[in-house]
């Protein structure tokens, strides 16, 4: 299977503090990948570093052997919910339509094809009935579904989702994970920042385990082991996950 993402020696800092230290890994395409680590371990920073949203101290990132600049339009990103201005005057359907912008290019306006696509994507996440509503009227789970629909409308090859399961209801979570698995089965690669360890084995094919440094990257069964997890999480692991009960 071909490589989807190669990260080499990625380091990043906020001011004086180093947040990521020499992270290197290489992941396969067509997988659902969880980025796992304790709070403040640099999960979101890693995502942003990969996507060129923050300056890196060192490091090189390749998507299918190409630099980001060559593959930008095949990459979809969903920021953390807290980074969005929910009072912005925009409806649900117009938010999803934003996903069609990268392929439209300058000066072209979204037309019927784009509107149909946006509606189809909204349907996939069960939000078609809310198309004309304003985004602030949506619940936490509905908001995440709208942004997943926007990512779907980008018709990307690689998806990067920052905490899509934070503050949402169980049925929204199920709709989202089913859509992601469907994407994976179509050969797309999905990276998602996640902090709920109880779902790791049922959700992901691969995981990237970090806490400032890389503790492992590869198939869940190879990385999600008590010894490796304890190394990354330290003594706080038991707070997140009761290993004895699960295994």
């Amino acid at each position: 299977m071909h490589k989807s993402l190669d990260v080499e020696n990625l380091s990043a800092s906020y001011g004086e503090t180093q947040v990521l230290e020499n992270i290197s890994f290489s992941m396969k395409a067509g997988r659902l990948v969880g980025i796992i680590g304790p709070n403040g371990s640099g999960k979101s920073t890693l995502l942003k570093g990969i996507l060129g949203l923050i300056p890196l101290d060192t490091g090189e990132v390749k998507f299918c052997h190409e630099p980001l600049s060559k593959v930008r339009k095949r990459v979809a990103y969903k920021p953390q919910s807290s980074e969005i201005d929910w009072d912005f005057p925009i409806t649900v359907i117009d938010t999803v339509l934003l996903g069609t912008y990268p392929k439209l290019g300058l000066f072209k306006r979204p037309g019927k094809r784009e509107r149909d696509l946006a509606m189809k994507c909204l349907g996939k996440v069960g939000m078609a009935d809310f198309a004309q509503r304003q985004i602030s009227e949506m619940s936490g789970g509905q908001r995440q579904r709208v942004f997943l629909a926007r990512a779907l409308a980008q018709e990307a090859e690689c998806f990067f989702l920052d905490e899509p399961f934070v503050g949402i209801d169980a049925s929204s979570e199920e709709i989202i994970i089913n859509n992601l698995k469907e994407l994976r089965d179509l050969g797309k690669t999905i990276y998602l920042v996640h902090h709920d360890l109880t779902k790791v084995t049922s959700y992901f094919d691969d995981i990237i385990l970090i806490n400032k440094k890389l503790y492992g990257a590869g198939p869940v069964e190879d990385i999600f082991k008590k010894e490796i997890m304890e190394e990354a999480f330290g003594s706080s692991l038991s707070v997140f996950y009761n290993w004895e009960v699960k295994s």
Partner: protein
Amino acid sequence: MINFINDLLTYGFLQKALVTSIAVGIISGIVGSFIVLRGMSLMGDAISHAVLPGIAISYMLGINYFYGAIIAGVLTSIGIGAISDNSRIKTDSAIGIVFSAAFALGIILISKAQSTTDLTQILFGNVLHVRTSDMRLTLGIGVIVILVVSLFYKELLLSSFDETMAQVYGLNTKLIHYGIMVLLTLVTVASLQTVGVILVVSMLITPASTAYLLTNRLSFMIVLSSFFGAISAIIGIYFSYVNDLPTGPAIALAAAIIFVLALVFSPKQGVLWPMINRRQRKGLEGETR
């Protein structure tokens, strides 16, 4: 009212004043919508003040103040960005430092170069003295603003709402930011005669905020905002002419009164309806008890 309409039909200066102010209302309504949504109100205030040294130097060199103002506006926004990006100083402080310094420099330059009457005109506007060339400049700026915003509407919308997504797919968000700064400077130049540099910010922010309270769509917000801007201009000129009030402040107050009306009566965002609803609910609870 009839007298005003009669005078409007008779006097060229009044027609020019009205056309120019309506144009300014529309332009600042459009640009103001983006300023308000991007949380750049303070930046709007800063740029409008900071064009002053540019205008002064243009006068000294004998060139059109348009060029000096644009250069000063862009330099100011770059200066603010440089300070807040490269030091621990937060953006609002950087804005305060740069624009007050630029404004002070402008006042000194103008008082050295010109008589003081010109300074008051620039600071507070004098719409009833609008020359045909000023009106043409304003209309020209209007055409540019409408053209730019309609051509790049998609990019402006996305970068205002979700800048990271815009960055990921390769939009140059820095360029868009400075593009908006240039538009802001253009609006300031257009508003000089009507409301003056000190009150430009009211035309930028107030009608756009009024519109923001009334709609959930950016496109309609821009239309509403321009409409409120134009209406404020007409009301302001009317009262200024009839009651002999300074025009800029009259327009700014008209805009503010419309805003207060929207704040109170807006069906979704207003403060009145939730209050009435609460009362009614309390009343109902009382009856059922």
